[in-house]
């Protein structure tokens, strides 16, 4: 038998996918499939929404109702989808450029409102799809296509951003942490409210190569060696600066808060049941 045990979760007619050798995005998708299996949620009720980017291609490979939207707008799309159809479990899957650069405002407000969606944010420290430009997470000093003399911007700490905006579940793993990542994703899949999972992922073609950081395998070794699991760390302390040779990973925030449109304040008027088409 030559069939991969996750094949039924994939649009196998589209494989091999477009990601580069050594790219981590596919591996996060592998963990996501594991998570869906673990979570027990029905594949029929799963909807995946991506923006635009290498990471944004995930929606196109998963055998779920899947939506490849526009750059930066996956979260608002997902918000409408989830509100209009509360029977769906809506996962947003995209890159840090998509979700935090052009889409940063939507992340902020969806987290504040505690919209019932889970967000997987692939942080590969660059814009892969367009050829390796500055991302909001690019480390200071990095060479990118738009910072040929080195980036000078302080990178954004995504978990801190999501947590301060109000996300109720916030975690970070690397692509190397396949088991923890799958468990965390599964937990997010079954929780209600706005959850945010950052996954550090190698972009060998653009980020690593340009900064003499080796290839995918090298970066995976780096992830393996320098990650420190520290659940419940305050997100603001959860650094990943290469100069510290320390990546803090784990689940940092778990809290409960009224979910958007579940709120008891408005429960009499704003019903929770399905919108009639």
């Amino acid at each position, binding site marked *: 038998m030559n069939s991969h045990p996750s094949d039924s979760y994939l649009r196998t007619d589209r494989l091999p996918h477009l990601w580069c050798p050594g790219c981590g995005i596919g591996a996060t998708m592998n963990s996501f499939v594991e998570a869906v299996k673990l979570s027990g949620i029905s594949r029929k009720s799963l909807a995946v929404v991506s923006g635009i980017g290498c990471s944004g291609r995930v929606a196109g490979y998963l055998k779920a109702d899947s939506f490849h939207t526009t750059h930066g707008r996956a979260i608002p799309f997902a918000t409408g989808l989830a509100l209009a159809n509360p029977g769906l479990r809506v996962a947003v899957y995209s890159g840090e450029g998509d979700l935090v650069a052009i889409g940063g405002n939507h992340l902020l*407000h969806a987290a504040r409102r505690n919209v019932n969606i889970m967000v997987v944010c692939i942080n590969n420290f660059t814009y892969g799809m367009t050829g390796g430009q500055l991302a909001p997470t690019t480390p200071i000093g990095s060479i990118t296509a738009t910072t040929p003399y080195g980036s000078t911007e302080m990178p954004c700490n995504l978990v801190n951003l999501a947590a301060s905006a109000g996300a109720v579940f916030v975690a970070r793993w690397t692509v190397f942490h396949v088991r923890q990542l799958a468990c965390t994703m599964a937990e997010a899949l079954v929780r209600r409210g706005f959850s945010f999972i950052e996954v550090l992922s190698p972009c060998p073609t653009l980020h690593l190569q340009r900064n003499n950081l080796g290839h995918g395998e090298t970066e995976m070794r780096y992830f393996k060696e320098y990650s420190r699991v520290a659940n419940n760390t305050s997100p603001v302390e959860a650094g990943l600066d290469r100069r510290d040779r320390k990546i803090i990973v784990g689940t940092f925030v778990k809290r409960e808060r009224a979910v958007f449109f579940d709120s008891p304040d408005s429960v009499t008027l704003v019903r929770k049941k399905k919108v009639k088409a």
Partner: protein
Amino acid sequence: MCAEPLALLTGVHFMDGNSAVCEGAIAAGCRFAAGYPITPSTEIMERFASRVPRLGGICIQMEDECASIMACIGAVWGGAKAFTATSGPGFSLMMESIGYAAMTETPLVVVNVQRAGPSTGLPTMPAQADMLQARWGSHGDYRVIALCPNSPQECFDLAIKAFNLAETWRVPVLIMMDEVVAHMSERVVIPTLSEIAVVQRRYTQVRPGEYQPYRPAARGVPEMAPVGKGFFMHVTGLTHDAKGYPAMDPETQDALVRRFTAKIDSNADDIIVYEEEEIADAEVVVVAYGITSRAAAAAVEEARALGIPAGLLRLVTAWPFPEKKVRELSGRVKALIMVELNLGQMFLEMDRCAKGGAQSIFLGHAGGSIHRPEAILMAIQKAAQL
């Protein structure tokens, strides 16, 4: 059909256009709106926010217009009928997503209450200067349907029609109001449930395994599938094949874009609505839409009273444009006068289509106020002497 009895305010009302378009949306079965306040459209969302939670629907204020329209598109794919309302600056911000809706053939309704622009302009005053933006504002080739109500009653009627057109043709339908119609109150008759024809979403009858989300069905319109039912649909703004998968070649591109533009172009006769007043023997025909058509109607009446054979062609659908009708008229009248609150927009299309002997005359200004019937009458008189 309206699911809830509370939904339909059957009866006679004194209502402004913003309220009426909101009631029309509700009557059409819309139970989802996401919007962002902007003068002079704000009251539409405000009314929806007050009305629809009682009907089990959802009205949310988003962080901006980009988010608003995308939340609506998401809601449509979630199974809802959805709409948003905005005005010029917000409409400009929605352009990218209108293209996405066109590309993904999302049945969506967007209301644009036109105010004087460009930019912030005169936020509380009328214009009709987003008409070509409605047609061309997003990048690439696509089609929309654009409707122009000229009274609160028509705001109600055309809102229903807009949702029906959106579902029928899977295309963004734009309700191009203007500030005067939006804030003008008149008698609005809301009929009973049985008097209102509502087009429901037609879902495919094909089984999940065989379903191809972008295979053209009747009249070039592909069938939708319900979400969450195992169809595993894929929707993308990339050029896509019948399966909905990205296909990066010029042939797929040409076939796709030609199909979804042709579904409007080749069915234009069924989509286009206009009204003719005293056209049969007219020598001078005023062409107008929205609030301007009412000043024009007054002027045409006065012209007739003065013995001038004037007529009125009122555009209800601005897009698609009644090209055939204008061609026909231009072959038999002396002059066509386009009256609009801009410096020449629909005029250009009229002028293009007017290949006959009729002169194309433009009468417009940059907005802020509407034409006085006397000004139009003068133009008619002048044209009659040509």
